[in-house]
């Protein structure tokens, strides 16, 4: 295991959050959550963006872009997936509120 892999594991252990993709529960850590609520034609639309950091080893098969992820009872949509191919340590899920 690389030092970077250890760092990611320690970061997740320090600030763990549980999230669910499909029926599987994982543990990661949340980088940023940016919450807003926009008034648009028809009503109020949640505008929430977040970045979730997870262990790449937990995700042998990455979820599809556009699939849903539940975190703290909020359903998000995965809009981008960032990986670090060189060391295979980390995966970052860019999330958006699923109602957007």
């Amino acid at each position, binding site marked *: 295991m690389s030092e970077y892999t250890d760092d990611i594991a320690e970061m997740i252990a320090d600030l763990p959050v549980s999230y669910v993709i499909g029926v599987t529960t994982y543990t990661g850590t949340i980088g940023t959550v940016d919450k807003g609520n926009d008034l648009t*034609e*028809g009503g109020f639309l949640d505008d929430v963006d977040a970045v979730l950091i997870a262990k790449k080893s937990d995700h042998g098969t990455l979820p599809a872009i556009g699939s849903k992820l539940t975190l703290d009872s909020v359903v998000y949509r995965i809009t981008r997936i960032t990986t670090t191919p060189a060391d295979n340590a980390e995966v970052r899920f860019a999330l958006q509120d*699923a109602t957007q």
Partner: protein
Amino acid sequence: MSDYNTLEQKLEGAAKDVLDDASAWTITAYTGEDDEDIGTPRVVCMVESAEEEQLGTGNWRVSLTVRLTSNADDSTASAHAANVEKMRDLFLDDDIAATLSGNDAEFHVLGIYSRTTAKGIEERNRFADVTLELLAAPYNL
């Protein structure tokens, strides 16, 4: 408030009723100034402005746009297209002026000038519009 000052809202409400009253329509409809929490799929009935057609007649030229928005991850293109077809069938109906008039006792559509459609993509959503340019009066005839 004078009835003249709420023509846009009356038309939006009458258009929403067209969708709510259609048994085959299952997607929640909103008016432009609704303040509920919304998501997708949704359909919004919007009137942004009205212009009196011949000053002093009390008849107003109004543009009504009904927009269906569906998330592309949650629905297929063909499912979205099927809902677009249902929505447009309701508003491109030959009797739409009478149907809208019947949905509000203090509102009357005298005729339709033009009908247009549009569609597009916004972020991960598909949307489709039907727009009616119509002549309406904010009272019953």
